[in-house]
């Protein structure tokens, strides 16, 4: 019980000394393995939750359906077979890209292609959201962190806290009201043009940019407190020279990781809610429509694709952090 436990860190550089013994290739492989395990757990959870909690057949059936009709629907969904058989079908379907057919919103079409058709729209929206999050959160966070307690810092803190505290879909509504309805700068419904990315992108940016501001600010502040800054200052290096030469470089890796995490969080849910708010023709809109009609296979396909993207984004960030961290270490 006295043995010290090695804490797994998320590649933010705390474990640098311990890691030096392993090669970079080993680390990359280990991260990929960890990502695969998490992906497997997520996909399994989706399978189990979808089947053990509630009854898709019952909710899909019309209210006045007879027991035979409900059983028929259950058979069509394949939910009447043993759980293990279903699991085998689920996993082999995942590999083959077959996730069953839609029952309601696009009768007898495969569910996965329906979702993948919308992937591009969702992807473009997440990238727009990421752009606005970085614009709103990163540079402001560094400036606020370098000058803590300044007016800029205090105003920024207040706005960032408001950005993460108020429901972002509510901000979206307000933006629609002001910018689209009253000012007529953009159309209310998305027309696919570059302008239509503005409002949903800003809505995502308010939420994730607020979080990024807080994270980046405290990362910068932590960096300011490190002894090398005091050493650099005592050598007579000016304040801004310290900031430009040392702090930005060291904060950069942390910021990259945080931006990546925020991107994963978009796929975790926020982008879909924003799609619903703005009637954006992406996966979120498709799944919420499917949920209105209890179209189980389509929702499940949407959840799987979203889960894959969350895991993938986290994995890419982890891999980048591993690679960049190593080269940074070699450079010092």
């Amino acid at each position, binding site marked *: *019980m006295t043995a010290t436990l090695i804490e797994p860190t998320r590649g933010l550089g705390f474990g640098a000394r311990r890691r030096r013994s392993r090669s970079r290739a080993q680390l990359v492989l280990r991260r990929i393995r960890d990502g695969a395990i998490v992906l497997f757990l*997520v996909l399994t*959870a989706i399978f189990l939750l979808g089947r053990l909690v509630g009854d898709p057949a019952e909710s899909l059936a019309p209210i006045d359906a007879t027991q035979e009709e409900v059983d028929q629907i259950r058979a069509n969904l394949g939910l009447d077979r043993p759980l293990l058989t279903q699991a085998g079908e689920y996993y082999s379907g995942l590999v083959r890209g077959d996730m069953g057919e839609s029952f309601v919103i696009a009768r007898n079409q495969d569910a996965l292609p329906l979702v993948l058709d919308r992937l591009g729209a969702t992807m473009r929206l997440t990238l727009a959201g990421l752009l606005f999050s970085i614009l709103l959160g990163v540079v402001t966070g560094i400036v606020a962190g370098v000058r803590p307690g300044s007016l800029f810092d205090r105003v920024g803190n207040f706005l960032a806290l408001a950005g993460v505290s108020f429901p972002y879909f509510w901000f979206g509504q307000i933006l629609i009201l002001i910018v689209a309805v009253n000012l007529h700068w953009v159309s209310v419904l998305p027309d696919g043009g570059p302008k239509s990315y503005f409002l949903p992108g800003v809505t995502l940016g308010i939420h994730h940019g607020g979080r990024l501001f807080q994270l980046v600010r405290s990362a910068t502040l932590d960096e300011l*407190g490190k002894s090398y800054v005091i050493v650099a200052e005592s050598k007579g290096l000016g304040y801004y020279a310290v900031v430009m030469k040392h702090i930005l470089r060291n904060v950069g890796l942390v910021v990259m990781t945080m931006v990546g995490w925020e991107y*994963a969080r978009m796929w975790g849910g926020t982008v879909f809610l924003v799609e619903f708010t703005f009637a954006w023709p992406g996966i979120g809109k498709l799944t919420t429509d499917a*949920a209105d009609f209890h179209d189980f296979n389509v929702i499940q396909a949407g959840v799987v694709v979203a889960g894959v993207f969350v895991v993938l984004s986290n994995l890419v960030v982890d891999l980048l952090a591993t690679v960049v961290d190593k080269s940074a270490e070699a450079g010092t």
Partner: protein
Amino acid sequence: MASSVSILDDAGRLGHVSRLTRVRGSGWWIWVALLAVIVLFAIAGNWIAPFEHTAQEPRAKFLRPLESSDAGFHLFGTDELGRDVFSKVIAGARLTVFIGVAATLIGASVGTALGMLAGYRGGWIDRIVMRLTEAQTAMPMFLIALLLISSLGPSVWNLIAILPTYIWPTFARLIRAETIRMRSSQFIEAAIALGCTTRTILWRHLFPNLGSRIGILAAISVGQVILAEAGLSFIGAGVQSPDVTWGLLISGGRKYLTVAWWPTVFPGVFAGITVFALNGLARRFTDVGRGV
């Protein structure tokens, strides 16, 4: 942090880092007062609200805020059926706060128990718990909630069952880290030396020392749950009429946004202020709030 601040104080220009504590130190009573008002709405809303929140007044549809109808003064105006928006917002506080607190209690209990166990025992328990938190964090919970609600049917209890999944991993990770930090401290060693059982050590010695951390994290979590619930209710997968929460009210006003902004705006303001106050208060006490 405290020690590094005083070092920086002497380092000339970096000294104003210490001002941070003063920024944090002021104004916390505003958050407490705001939260007290919200809790008062939640508990005694029936007596405070000027109108029955379901009372319709067909001749007073879409009254602007601060206008009066035959029935009386409407602080936040009226909605498409002439119902008083202020009374609806007050009525929404009850269920919003209840769901927030109930889901947080469940999530905090699960997360704290797992975190303490993982941190204290280490080994395979620790590895499993950590993998689970990673998997949970990687779940697209919004769509999973949609999937579950679609087959379960929307209800308040189903929501309270689903929402803790949003917050337990944070508790597990933080409490685990704190437990690891405390495990080697003298009071735990003394307890082990005195022959306390693991359960006694965890429950009687460790848990009381985690109290403040749990409290701060719980404040943030109530806010997170309120936002998650509002999102689910907004898309129709959460609370259903005749129940009211702020998220459902925002959703209800959506159709009439171009005609009347007030039925949408005011519930959102209240949800936002509540979460803002919870976050502000948590941050007032410590830095654990960041990144949650």
